[in-house]
């Protein structure tokens, strides 16, 4: 069971986690990325490539599902403007045992940072700026290969 959602709406954690709690799923791992409220950003804007984004997220999810025999995997990514503390992304993975769920969750969030066409722009008191890619993210994504 793979669920991919790219949406301008807030992410509902309870609903998304409950969705992956399918039969046989003894372990559920999840990750939520949020707009940090402590670095002067008043608004974060997420731009994406419609169509390619969903396909890229689905490819990440399918690869994880096959590699860790997942019972379910969900990736929800928000787009558009959002404020400090709001959720940008949620990954939830369900497997028979915990290590598969935990590893698959870490894999999905690492890979989507490099494999899915999203771009972040931060609005700060000093103006707006496009977020630069972090070298550590690229490295972490390739570490899974």
């Amino acid at each position, binding site marked *: 069971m793979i669920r991919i959602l790219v949406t301008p709406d807030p992410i509902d954690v309870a609903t998304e986690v409950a969705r992956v709690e399918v039969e046989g799923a003894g372990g559920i791992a999840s990750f939520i990325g949020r707009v940090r409220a402590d670095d002067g950003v008043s608004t974060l804007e*997420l731009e994406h*490539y419609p169509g*390619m984004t969903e396909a890229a997220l689905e490819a990440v999810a399918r690869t994880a599902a096959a590699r860790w025999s997942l019972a379910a995997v969900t990736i929800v990514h928000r787009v558009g403007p959002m404020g400090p503390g709001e959720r940008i992304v949620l990954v939830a993975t369900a497997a028979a045992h915990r290590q598969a769920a935990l590893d698959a969750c870490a894999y999905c969030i690492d890979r989507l*940072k490099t494999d899915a066409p999203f771009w972040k*722009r931060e609005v700060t008191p000093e103006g707006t700026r496009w977020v630069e890619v972090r070298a550590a993210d690229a490295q972490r994504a390739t570490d899974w290969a």
Partner: protein
Amino acid sequence: MAIEMLYFAWVREVIGTGHERVDPPAEVETVGALIDWLAASSDTHAAAFENRERLRAAVDQAFVPLDAAIAGAREIAIFPPVTGG
């Protein structure tokens, strides 16, 4: 052969549009050559494409390196490295 060009993030902002239809000559065979050809067409394209190391591309919605062939492509996107998640 007309190609739908898509631009995202600051590439879109510098060029001033998110999409345009182009019809490059037959000798433009790779994404990199297409970028050169577009850069020669206007100052804004030239500005957006000034530093190749900051550009990434997708052909028909699949990431490709800049030396990838464009034969048969219907949609080509040029954008900065992605920063989602």
